[in-house]
Structure formats: structure tokens, C-alpha cells
């Protein structure tokens, strides 16, 4: 049984986890590199730069070049992490990553802060709602978002140790630290937080804490909830989803467009393997706008109340 931290939780942005872990990895392995594009401070790579300056490059505001250079670096055995914001790291360099990283299956990691709606007051131009979907579509790519600080550190380390292209997405804002620091995570394997048999809730990234709160409310009302943290949406954990189809009711929750993200990835499996209803909670195929992060979640129905209502509506 998994033992979670108890509320009130410590709050930490998952970009901090990337910054802390990549600095450790850089010390341990001289092949680990960071390729920055003028937002190293914000993406938390400064510690890495100061710790192992020879393993750090900053190409300026030139994301496409960053991706291509990383591809080149990786051909000699280096393990470059390209670091920028999710909107630029997925869309601006998407074709470079497809042609020069995924097609030749090179060992490059795209590590991005400001995932989902978290760059809230920057507005719609900066909120990455399509990034995981874009990368989910490209062969050879793995797509990952940890739920909290500890999960993210573990997943960053695994990404470094796993050969091939990986897309990692982090939050700009603080999210509750729900996991114990000794909890282990495996790329492609869902983390079961709760087991139950009335309804399954599958969440990822910054929405796992909302799903957890919703699950606790549902339990207090006598509903038995199975709760999965699907930190990897590609390769997706088919077995875990097939287990959920035995319940027959799944609610997915994500800070991403409901098209092509976690909800779609789960639905793909369900369509082939199970006679199950899926309700997707996430960004309602609309661009973001400037507003507090919580307000943006509310506009899109990514709230504890809506998760509870949606789950109750299914049973």
C-alpha cells in the first residue's frame, strides 16, 4: 500500500524538481548536458550550469536550433536535455524533434517548464495545452508529467537512464507534495494511489492532487474509488486501464486539451479493450487567457467539485 503525505502539504513547483535532479545527474555523469534557450533561470537549470558549466550550453532565443544541436550532441553518446517552456519546446521545435530526434531515435530529452495552464497570467500565448498531444503522435517519443516534486525527480532520473527521446513536462506553479520521497516511479507504469470498485479516476500532472481530494470526498460519501496517477501517457499503461474497464466507469483529469492528451490516450485503450464509459475533464478545446491559475481551471471544469459530480453522475 502506498503511503501518501498528509495535508497540509508542502508546496513546490515541479520545475524545481527538474532543476535539483538534473544538477545531481550532471555531477554523476559527464555526458548529461543541458541545452538552454535563454530561459534557464526560469526553467531552473542555473544550478546545473553552476555545478557542471562545461556540460551546459545556452543557444539564446533559438529553440529550433537548440533541438537540432541536441540531436547532433547525442550522436556521440551525450545525453542532452533541451530546456525551455512547454509551448516552445513542443510546438516551435516540433519538426526538428520529429525529423532529427525521433526519426533517427536519438537519446535527446525535451524538458519543459510552464506546462498546461500554469503560466496563467502570461495568457493564452504561453499556456501549453497541446504539447503532450503533439508529442504523443510522434513515433519513438515518450511523454511524461510527474504529479509532484518527488515523482518528477524520479521520472527525470529515469528519463536520463532510458535510451531514446522523452518529453518531460513541469509546472511553473507550486503544487502539493503528495508523495513520500522514497516512492518509486516507473516510466510507462501507472501509480495506483487508491484501489476501489465503483469508479476509476485517472489523472496526471498538476491535476493528481485535485483527483486525490475528489476521491477522498467520494469515499466519505461511501463511493469506492480507484485512483491512478498516469504520469506517462506514452507508452500508456494498457494493463492498468484494462483493470479499470472491469469497473466500467472512468473519469480522466488533465491540465491539457481534452483532445489528444491523457483522456484520449485512455479512450484509445478503452475503445479497443473494454465496454466502458469515459468522461474526460480537461481544457475544453479552447485557448487559455490571462487569469489566476485556479480561475482557468474553474473555467474548464478542472475542479474537485466537477470531478466529484462527474464521478457521481456515472454511478
Amino acid at each position, binding site marked *: 500500500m502506498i503511503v501518501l503525505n498528509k495535508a497540509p502539504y508542502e508546496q513546490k513547483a515541479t520545475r524545481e524538481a527538474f532543476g535539483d535532479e538534473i544538477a545531481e545527474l550532471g555531477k554523476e555523469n559527464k555526458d548529461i548536458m543541458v541545452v538552454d534557450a535563454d530561459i534557464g533561470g526560469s526553467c531552473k537549470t542555473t544550478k546545473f550550469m553552476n555545478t557542471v558549466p562545461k556540460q551546459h550550453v*545556452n543557444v*539564446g532565443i*533559438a529553440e529550433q536550433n537548440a533541438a537540432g544541436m541536441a540531436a547532433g550532441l547525442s550522436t556521440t553518446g551525450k545525453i542532452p536535455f533541451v530546456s525551455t517552456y512547454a509551448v516552445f519546446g513542443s510546438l516551435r521545435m516540433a519538426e526538428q524533434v520529429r525529423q532529427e530526434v525521433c526519426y533517427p531515435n536519438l537519446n535527446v530529452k525535451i524538458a519543459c517548464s510552464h506546462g498546461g495552464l500554469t503560466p496563467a*497570467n*502570461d*495568457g493564452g*500565448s504561453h499556456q501549453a495545452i497541446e504539447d503532450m498531444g503533439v508529442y504523443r503522435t510522434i513515433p519513438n517519443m515518450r511523454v511524461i508529467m510527474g504529479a509532484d516534486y518527488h515523482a518528477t525527480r524520479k521520472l527525470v532520473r529515469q528519463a536520463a537512464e532510458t535510451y531514446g527521446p522523452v518529453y518531460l513536462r513541469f509546472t511553473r506553479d507550486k503544487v502539493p507534495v503528495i508523495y513520500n520521497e522514497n516512492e518509486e516511479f516507473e516510466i510507462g507504469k501507472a501509480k495506483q494511489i487508491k484501489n476501489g470498485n465503483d469508479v476509476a479516476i485517472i489523472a496526471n500532472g498538476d491535476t493528481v492532487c485535485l483527483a486525490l481530494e475528489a476521491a477522498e470526498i467520494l469515499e466519505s460519501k461511501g463511493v469506492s474509488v480507484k485512483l491512478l496517477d498516469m504520469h506517462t501517457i506514452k507508452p500508456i499503461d494498457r494493463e492498468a486501464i484494462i483493470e479499470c474497464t472491469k469497473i466500467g466507469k472512468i473519469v480522466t483529469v488533465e491540465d491539457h486539451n481534452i483532445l489528444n492528451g491523457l483522456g484520449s490516450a485512455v479512450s484509445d485503450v478503452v475503445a479497443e479493450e473494454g465496454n466502458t464509459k469515459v468522461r474526460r475533464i480537461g481544457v475544453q478545446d479552447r485557448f487559455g*487567457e*490571462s487569469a489566476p491559475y485556479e480561475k482557468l481551471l474553474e473555467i474548464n471544469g478542472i475542479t474537485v467539485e466537477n470531478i466529484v459530480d462527474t464521478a457521481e453522475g456515472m454511478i
Partner: protein
Amino acid sequence: MSNITVEELKEQAIQLRQTAVTMVYHAQSGHPGGSLSAADFVTALYFREMNVNPEDPEWADRDRFVLSKGHVAPIQYAALAHRGFVPMETVKTLREYKSPFQGHPDSKKCPGIDISTGSLGQGLSCAVGMALAGKLDEKDYRVFAVIGDGEAQEGQIWEATQSAVKYKLDNLIVFLDDNGLQIDGPTNEIMPNLDLEKKFEAFGFTTKRIDGHSMEEILETLDEVKNVKDGKPKIIVCNTIKGKGVSFMENVVGWHGKAPNEEEYDKAMEELARGLNA
């Protein structure tokens, strides 16, 4: 507004600075540094040079303005508010839910924004498209674009540049805010641009480097390029100081995207009220 005097424009530039800093202070987020470095030429454009109509912001024959370095939206918003495109109260709503003043310029939400920007390197191509459309439609409007020196590291800037030259867009006038800083540090250290004026010249632009805080030089240069129909796009490379007008922000990398606290805000407003130090 061609009868406005140089002294009035200088005063106006101070007001825009005050408004931009006030906006960022209220929002407790936003980009003061690059707003202040761009304040003087933005003032010259909105209060003397550009043919725009706040009553009819989508007027087909208007001059266009593209803020390719969209993060300095506060200085454009200040110009739009002072020119009457939006009510003055709007300045208290920067980055708030439902505000026309989004974190980065949004043409669907704010009158007077000709195209949404925020992802660096892309706006100049849009300006080239607008200028090309003007040529194709045989219209007299001109297109003004503002790019950053950090932004000039994006490859797309040079793709836009070569297109502007190919299509002989002498109706395109670019201001390059050469303030020497980007986010992670000085431009010279992060990714040296070398001489941007020479680069644009080699690409086929008419270029001039000026003091971007001298209203006289800005106006003189705008007059020089005004009726030149030589088939060449123009770029005015402006030597500027990031944070210009607020001593503790000047040339300090950290003021790229940070809001002042109350004490800093009061000091900034007080300094700005005294005008620009020469």
C-alpha cells in the same frame, strides 16, 4: 497629430513609462525593462508618426503596428490607453481575467492590436505579410514593427528579413530595440549578435543606428525614411537602455520580467516625474 512638438512628445514618453510601470505594479507581473527601453520610439509612432484612428481601430487604410517582442505589451497598452483606444481605467486590469490587456498582445481582445504576439521571432513575418498586402492592394499604409535584440537570435527573423527584401517592401519600417540584454543575461554573453545593423544591411535593408532615447533623432530618422520609395525595407537600430528612466532598473537583467514592490514603485514614479536623465 503631426503638429505635436518635440517637448510634448518627450513629456508623453514619460507618461507612457509611468503608465507602463503602474500597470506592471498593479498586476504584480509583467515586463518593465523592455517596455521602458522601447518607450521613446513607441511614443513617436503613436503620437506623431502613425496614421491610426482610435475611433475606428480597424480602419482598412491605417498604418499597422506589430509588437514582435510581445512581452513588452505594457508600453503598447500605455500608448493605446493614452491615445483613447481603450478607457484609461483599463490600465488597472493588466493580466486580469477578461481584460483587453492580456499578458501578451491579443488582437481578439484589444482594439488597436493588429495581430497577437508573444512567441518571439514570429511577429516580423506577420508585419512582412501586412506590408506585402499593402503593396498588392496599392494602399499607402505603412507597417511598423518592433523587435528585440535577443529576439533577433530567432532564425525566423532572418527568414522574414529576406522576404521583405525580395518583395521590395519599402513600406515596412522596423525598430530594433538594441538594449543589450535578454533574460538569462547580456546578449553578448548569451548569444552574441555581433553588429545587427551590418547584418540587416547585408540582407538588403536600409539601416541606420540611432540613440533610441533621443526624441530628436527618432523624429529626424522617421522624417528621413518617410517618403522614400526605393524598394528597400528600413530598419532603425536603436541604442537603448533596458529600464530607461528608472535608475535601479537601468541595465539590470533582473528587471526584465519582474514587478516592483510598493517602495520600488514609489521610487520609480518619483524618478520618472523628474524626467529622463540625459
